[in-house]
């Protein structure tokens, strides 16, 4: 919590084209960040269809994959991020008290 207040979160979302899963994942991520990390996050989307070499370089096989670049350590979350609770656990973001 004390870390999260100061630092900017850098999140990278790997998708493969504009598929329903990609769109859902990005929307879910956006909403989650606005709710929990407002003003303290940056999202980068990597579309493997247009940057195929990134899959090997960044060791991605599953899409969508969300990678927490910062703060360290790196964490990976896979799926369309529809399970908010697990995303929060995966990112190690503490849910706000008013959220169930």
């Amino acid at each position: 919590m004390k870390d999260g207040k100061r630092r900017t979160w850098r999140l990278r979302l790997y998708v493969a084209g504009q598929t329903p899963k990609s769109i859902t994942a990005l929307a879910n991520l956006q909403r989650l960040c606005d709710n929990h990390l407002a003003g303290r996050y940056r999202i980068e989307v990597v579309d493997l269809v247009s940057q195929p070499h990134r899959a090997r370089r960044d060791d991605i096989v599953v899409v969508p994959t969300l990678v927490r670049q910062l703060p360290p350590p790196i964490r990976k979350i896979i799926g369309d991020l529809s399970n908010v609770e697990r995303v929060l656990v995966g990112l190690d973001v503490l849910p706000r008290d008013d959220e169930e």
Partner: protein
Amino acid sequence: MPTSVHRSNPVPTKRAGNGRQPLAKAPTGIPGLDEITNGGLPRGRPTLVCGGAGCGKTLLALEFLVRGALEYDEPGVFMSFEETADDLVDNARSLGFDLPRLSARRRLLLDYVRLERSELTEAGAYDLEGLFIRLGHAIDSIGAKRVVLDTIELLFSGLSDRFVVRAELARLFRWLKTKRVTAIVTGEREAEHLTRHGLEEYVSDCVILLDQRVKEQSATRRLRILKYRGSAHGGNEMPFLIDDHGVSVLPITSLGLAHPASTAHVSTGVSGLDEMFGKKGYFRGNSVLVSGTAGTGKSSLAAHFAEAACRRGERCLYFAFEESPSQIVRNMRSIGVHLAPWMRRDLLHIHAQRPTALGLEAHLVAMHRLIDDWRPRVVVVDPVTNMIAVGSEIEVKAMLARLIDLMKLRQITALFTSLTEADGAAERTDLGVSSLMDVWMLLGNLEANGERNRAIQIVKARGMAHSNQVREFVMTDRGVTLVDVSRRADGSVAIGSARGAQQQPTRAGAPQPGRGRKAK
């Protein structure tokens, strides 16, 4: 890209199976494997290679890529889910393959996929499109024609949604066919199942099973083609080896009995013995077994045979399992057979090795390689019985059958000596081995009148008129000569000094079968 997979190739597996046209094949370049598969793996299709831990799946797959890149101008992608690229490089080095060099030349691309469930949080629906893009990009970037996925089953342990993994694997195998790559997919064997997660359901064209057993302290590896759609294949288990030359499968049994039968003759090296075979000797390509107890002259006969070949200008390869080359040369010189000059002229090569130095399969591979490299016309194995030290009777026989088939196919005339024990206990072995042989001769000692004299007889000689008589086998300082054994009026044999007393060497037909057979 992968999204169009379903439309472009709806049910590709159906086409190959009905045998309308022969399957195109991609040679593996692995000695033996291409023989038993009649040319290699199904081209443009995935093959499943399964087996337990440490059975050699990864190395076989790796060699398939390396040979493809080096010998068939087919670059390859190795996608590893298990071993890191560094580990693969190290393992390949033990087989004599330089992966970094191949990678630098863009003939090979190693890609290690790390998928640890403990490092991943799953939060919603996903698929493996990233894998398709990754593999597709790897294939396209080096123009790969071959792909290895080792072992893709680890996706099941890395990801919790089995339905997704299954569906994606099915899609992956269809997609591989549209990429027209020849692929090896490895799978870990588990109990009664070929693979832990049923990969065999997806790979329908070719399934190869590897197996490793440890018996009497030595590990033997076996390979079996379980399935090969649209192609004839031997269903037998084939021994295979992994050594510093890579993988070798010993498929020689698959050659079957289709070898040509020559009518040309090859001298035995002993004129009296040639005479017993209708004055001509053995047929070219014959396998000859010479058995006898210790000191009956087996090696001498072998040396004569070898020397006669060299005299004709033919190359002879002599496998010595008991004596060193110099010992053989010295001993044979004492009976007037000079081998050293032929060795200097590169017509004779004596390959001496203790049988226990290698396992049975390793012996066969070593012999196979030497025969391939040196291209002899005549081969001597002295004695073949020492092989028994390294294998069971059945294995030795199977190994010999393979060796004999190989030599027959190449029209190599081979002589095997076999040491039998005086009590006859080892004759069983002889009988087992002798059925593989075209010619079988027995050397023995006949004891009579307080003397022990050597004798020789032909037990069988396929397709040849041969003498049924026992001859005395005399070793002089000018080599082996055969002398007619005289028969007395009462039918008993006059041999040695008794022979001289007998005036007329008998020409009378059949000797009593039990009589001359052998002193026991």
